[in-house]
């Protein structure tokens, strides 16, 4: 019943349908009402402050900062600054007291749809420490405090509490799970060593997940985000595709055929692994049935085929082939039939990734000798260049909500990881640590 109520209370009710489709995951690729549409009205939201209710001085401020950035990145909300509207909104309390009511009325009068506030405390007893956070939400449409959340946990999950609250806000107003709790896998480079690491979607809390001291390349997530697949050089002579379970650190080899074994991609249902291998000569695409272990060859030609990426409904693949000379982006059915070329502009187009909503494919395009990101529709229409300027851009990967891309770039000389909105706005650098970071992959589920 609450779902029905959204419609009456919220301007963004239209998005509800989109959210419900999102949960269905596949088959509905073209029916999305996207928040990236130019005519989409963002919901104006103000964070009125997270008060300190005991603990260090920075506590509330830090949670507030994380929450505000999440709200902004969601692209669902338009973050409004109350003080700039002349509204003093400290100490709102938890109810609908007369002070609070005055603030809400002022905010609503200035066009603010949602006011969010809360409190946080950190208690230490001996070696144990506990953070408590409470967040509350006022909705001007229904003129009431529509609800809140209370979280408790170790201080190490402080940021995660703010992320989870931000995702609850997105969920409440769109039916989508939000992206603030998602992770990004990538490659950390020290000298000639490449290890796989995982970080939060905003670049924080990075952790290394391999430690071989040699080459581990191009990680890709399983659909449930519990596993990573990547290319590993087992010795200096052979290259395999390995799989690692993040919760346990268990790691094993899933493809070991000899030659190049690269660019693994699990189908959305997890039942098929598409990958490129050169064990029969040049790099070709193969499909491994993860249940029967049957292997099927998808491409047959004397040139390089690589980098498969699944359509969200699992029926098609986009991939790279240099059968025409330089690398270009192609499409085919998941059984290898119906191959057709997608990109015709430029002599270098590679690393395609199908958007989670199915309506776009991002890839690396060479334009005026620079390697930038481009986006195109699967029907070959609406090609646009997403990034500009100097620097080699590589490895685009979609956020699960399809509103952002993460990629690597050498725009600041050494390769680091950046996030950008799917319309080319809000470029944000995510990694600052380590010598070089590359090959990001965004986990596809929230």
């Amino acid at each position, binding site marked *: 019943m609450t*779902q029905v109520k959204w*419609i009456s209370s919220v301007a963004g*009710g*239209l998005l509800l*349908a989109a959210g*419900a489709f999102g*949960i269905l*995951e596949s088959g509905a690729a073209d029916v999305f009402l996207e928040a990236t549409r130019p005519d989409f009205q963002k919901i104006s939201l103000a964070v009125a402050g997270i008060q300190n209710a005991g603990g260090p001085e920075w506590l509330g401020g830090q949670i507030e900062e994380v929450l505000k950035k999440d709200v902004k990145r969601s692209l669902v909300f338009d973050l409004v600054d109350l003080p700039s509207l002349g509204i003093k909104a400290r100490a709102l309390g938890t109810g609908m007291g007369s002070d609070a009511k005055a603030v809400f009325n002022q905010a609503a009068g200035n066009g603010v749809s949602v006011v969010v506030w809360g409190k946080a405390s950190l208690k230490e007893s001996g070696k144990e420490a506990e953070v*408590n956070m*409470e967040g509350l939400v006022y909705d001007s449409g229904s003129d009431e405090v529509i*609800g*809140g959340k209370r*979280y408790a946990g170790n201080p190490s*999950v402080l940021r*995660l*509490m703010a992320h989870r609250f931000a995702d*609850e806000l997105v*969920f*409440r107003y769109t039916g989508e799970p939000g992206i603030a709790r998602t992770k990004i896998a990538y490659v950390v480079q020290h000298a*000639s060593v490449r290890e796989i690491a995982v970080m939060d979607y905003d670049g924080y809390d990075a*952790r290394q997940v391999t430690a*071989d*001291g*040699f*080459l581990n390349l191009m990680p890709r997530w399983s*659909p449930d985000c*519990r*596993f990573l697949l990547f290319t590993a050089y087992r*010795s*200096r*002579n052979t*290259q395999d595709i390995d*799989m690692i*379970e*993040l*919760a346990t*650190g*268990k790691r*094993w*080899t*899933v*493809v070991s055929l000899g030659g*190049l074994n690269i*660019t693994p991609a699990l189908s959305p249902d*997890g*039942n098929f692994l598409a990958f490129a291998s*050169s064990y029969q000569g040049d*790099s070709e695409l193969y499909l491994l049935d*993860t*249940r029967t272990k049957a292997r099927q060859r998808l491409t047959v030609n004397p040139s*390089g085929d*690589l*980098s498969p990426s699944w359509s969200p409904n699992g029926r098609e693949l986009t991939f790279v082939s240099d059968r025409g000379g330089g690398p270009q982006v192609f499409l085919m059915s998941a059984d290898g039939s119906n191959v057709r070329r997608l990109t015709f502009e430029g002599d*270098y187009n*590679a*690393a395609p990734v199908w958007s989670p909503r199915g309506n776009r494919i991002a890839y*690396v395009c*060479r334009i005026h000798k620079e*390697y930038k990101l481009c986006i195109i529709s699967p029907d070959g229409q609406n090609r646009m260049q997403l990034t500009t300027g100097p620097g080699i851009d590589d490895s685009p990967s979609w956020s699960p909500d399809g509103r952002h891309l993460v990629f690597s770039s*050498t725009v600041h000389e050494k390769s680091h990881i950046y996030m950008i909105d799917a319309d080319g706005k809000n470029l944000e650098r995510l990694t600052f640590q380590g010598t070089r970071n590359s090959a990001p992959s965004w986990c596809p589920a929230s």
Partner: protein
Amino acid sequence: MKKGLYACGVAMMSLALIGLTGCASKSLQSGGNSSAQAPAKAGSGSNADSFPSTGIQPSGSELRGLEKSPSEERVGNAMLSKVDPSASAPRQLDEAASAELRDVFFGYDSWAISEEAGLGLTRNAEWIKSNSSAQVKIEGHCDERGTSAYNLVLGEKRAKTVRNYLVELGIGANRLSVVSYGKEQPSCSEHDEPCYQQNRRGHLVVKSGK
């Protein structure tokens, strides 16, 4: 009025969808249950090609919606196990560069053997012939431009072109192996053409042991 009708339509559609999702998550969940044991099995040995079930498990979402009187939720971050970087054993090199074996260099985007590279390979072939027990590995490398993935393919093309050239010069194919490092093992890291040229190379090493 129109707006009201539309909102009602959307609501009905979403209710129907929620119903559908409910069914979908049920069947997925039962798949999820069976997958719970799969990772343990997969990890129990070094059995290659074993796959746990990795389909989406909607039960994993922690979002419960805003509540009028929120109950306390514990927040934990159990996703990642710790990796001990000290566990990484230094790799034993079973190969060595030979001062007699020269690198061969390639053009931008190219895996063709130039005249100069051909001369270098002819000299390399003479050395390999006169060291008849030497096993030679050919590494294909690329400059930093272009994608990591395509550069691995390009590096392999370069390594294989070098191998084929050496075979034509009379070296037994069984003495030659290839590996591509793409742009992952550059010999220099400046962003200029002299460095790019140095990195677009076929590098020959002599394998010891096997």
